């Protein structure tokens, strides 16, 4: 799968992002024609509406994510561990986990783990006695079946913080790969990664915010390294520019394909000095990268039975349109009544598809007209891809039955693609 270049902007600054939510609108006029994935796909049209619990607070288009990390990890070889590996510890009683790595090229026997009794910790070339307050063996970790081929130690209070050297005294297979994970629970130093959205179309501009904080205040002069990890495990280092504390880089031209629903991951390794203390942190943000296989065109009509949405489909597949119907409460404010969704299997071409509402839910609701449809979303169910969303500040008027009988032209509302911008709905 080849992707159009998209730019990832990493912004390292004191402030967190303060960007309004964006709609998922294709930036390219070109849709793509791609084969259906080789999975079982439902072919029947299915409609479903459900009531929204009264007074439930909905946030349309919320796709934000913030990752907070108090740990770091790195990959080393058996040879390096036998020679000694430098570890920067900034938090007393940090936890160190060592996991033998199994790869497709390197088969790993069950007992291939480091015995905590074979670990030695030095600081300033002096071995620390009673360096560990807790040792967890492979057998103990394996009991929980969470960390096979792993062992862990907890630093003693007496060991303190600073630059250490950890060494395995028993001879290891020199080429065997190990993951060293340092977890500094309760540390005041936290890497914070934030993004406004996790789902993107190929070619869209992507932006992230990264900072290393101390007691929630950012430290300046952090250095960062970034790479993208595909679900296949393939990693691609990212070369980025740093200008006025803004880091930006472009996605590679090629990323290995994902299976439907699988995500890519952006990893950030950060390092910063706070006086003489060196702080390392690793964090990641998962994101979906979809191909624009279809889109909603600019016309939506709606009455109390259904909305009709025009779709332009480039790739055969199963597509769902969904939205939330709002009505007016006794305080003259809009509140959600129901969430409705309809899915259809569609071939390439132009289609007017129905998004059915449940008349019983209108009757049962205490909310009154004029009704609105908000949060319209188009997804490609066959490829598990979010393709398009109505902006959070847009809505479509739902004509009441009388208007419908009169054939009012006010049913028309234009969506998403910039042809008409609707006023913000009154709250």
């Amino acid at each position: 799968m080849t992707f159009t270049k998209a730019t990832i902007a990493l912004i390292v600054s004191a402030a967190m992002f303060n960007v309004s939510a964006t709609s998922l609108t294709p930036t390219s006029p070109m849709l793509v024609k791609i084969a259906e994935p080789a999975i079982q796909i439902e072919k029947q049209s299915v409609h479903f509406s459900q009531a929204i619990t009264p007074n439930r607070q909905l946030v349309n288009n919320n796709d934000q994510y913030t990752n907070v990390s108090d740990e770091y990890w790195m990959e080393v070889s058996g040879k390096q561990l036998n020679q000694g590996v430098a570890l920067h510890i900034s938090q007393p009683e940090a936890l160190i986990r060592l996991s033998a790595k199994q790869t497709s090229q390197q088969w790993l026997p069950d007992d291939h783990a480091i015995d905590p009794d074979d670990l030695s910790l030095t600081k300033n070339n002096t071995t620390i006695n009673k360096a560990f307050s807790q040792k967890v063996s492979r057998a103990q970790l394996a009991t929980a079946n969470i960390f096979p081929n792993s062992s862990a130690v907890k630093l003693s209070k007496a060991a303190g913080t600073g630059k250490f050297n950890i060494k395995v005294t028993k001879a290891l297979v020199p080429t065997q790969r190990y993951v060293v994970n340092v977890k500094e629970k309760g540390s005041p130093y936290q890497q914070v990664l934030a993004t406004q959205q996790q789902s993107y179309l190929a070619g869209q501009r992507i932006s992230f915010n990264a900072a290393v904080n101390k007691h929630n205040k950012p430290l300046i002069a952090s250095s960062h390294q970034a790479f993208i990890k595909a679900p296949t495990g393939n990693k691609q280092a990212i070369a980025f520019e740093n200008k006025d504390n803004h880091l930006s880089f472009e996605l590679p031209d090629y990323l290995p394909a994902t299976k439907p629903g699988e995500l890519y991951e952006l990893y950030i390794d950060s390092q910063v000095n706070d006086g003489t203390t060196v702080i390392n942190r690793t964090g990641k943000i998962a994101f979906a990268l979809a191909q624009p296989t279809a889109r909603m065109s600019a016309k939506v009509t709606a009455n109390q039975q259904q909305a009709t949405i025009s779709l332009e489909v480039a790739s055969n597949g199963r597509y769902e349109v969904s939205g939330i119907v709002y009505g007016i409460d006794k305080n003259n404010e809009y509140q959600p009544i129901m969430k409705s969704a309809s899915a259809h299997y569609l071939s390439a071409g132009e289609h007017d598809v129905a998004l059915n509402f449940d008349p019983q839910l209108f009757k049962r609701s205490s909310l009154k007209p004029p009704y609105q449809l908000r949060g319209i979303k188009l997804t490609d169910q066959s490829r598990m891809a979010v393709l398009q969303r109505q902006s959070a500040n847009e809505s479509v008027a739902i004509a009441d039955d009388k208007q419908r009988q009169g054939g009012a032209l006010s049913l028309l509302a234009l969506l998403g693609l910039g042809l008409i911008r609707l006023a913000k709905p009154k709250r």
Partner: protein
Amino acid sequence: MKKIFISMLLSFMLFSATSSANQGLAFIHGTGNQTDAYNDYWTGSFVNSVRQGLNNPSKYTVINCDFDQFMWKSQAAGCLAQQLTTFITDQNITELVLLTHSNGGNIVRWVLSNPTYDSRYPNIINKISKVIAIAPSSLGTPLADAVNQGNAFIRSLSWILGYGSDAVKQQQVSWMNYYNQNWLLGTAGRPNLPVPFKTIIGSDVESAIWDGDSYCAGYQYQVALETTQNWLDSCSDGFLNCSSQRGAGSVWFTDKQRTAGREPLSHQQSRRDCFNLDTIIKNDI
């Protein structure tokens, strides 16, 4: 007199409605590819105690599916939908209670949140009266992230996470955030699920060697889960932070509020008949 008559009539109607419903109960396991979840995941003592809460205790099913897969896959949600459909049809179930553990809650949320994905889903949803979700991994777990740090895994018995399965990838924290915001309902700011989703929260792990309670469901698991708590918040069941367990639906109770002796439920103990958990659930059905 009129008020008394109306009250009696309403009580009779309520009783009639309840007694006329054909109740069914499904036990839905967590991560793992199960072929005998009755023995390997739940144990008979737990299942046979809980199902006594049904009008007819024989109307139950224990689901066996491949929940090492991503939740939407045919081997996961598709398998669950087929087994539930067969159960509903064969037993003529009109009121279905689902009891889930751990990642089983996510598979059920997939079905509830994506009714148009599969033509079998709407009928199942319309039959469900409630979901009792024990320790659901609704917001994922940092342990899944830790496991994936180096692909450092092997195939093992894997009752919690398994080896490097797709289900483990799915339960990483940032992955679950994406799925919650884009594909699943019930978390903060998102539409509610179409049926009640009541959660039971496990808040701690106790592994004192002198404490008999630490031996319920296996002492060795308690020791292991206390170790994994190092990657988690102070409120956790050894596998999941309480915040993740509370992340979707509504909290029914946190272990110590109702368990015998106010004992916490570790992630291992919350699928066993420990500290009256089975009786508490039975009485709610």
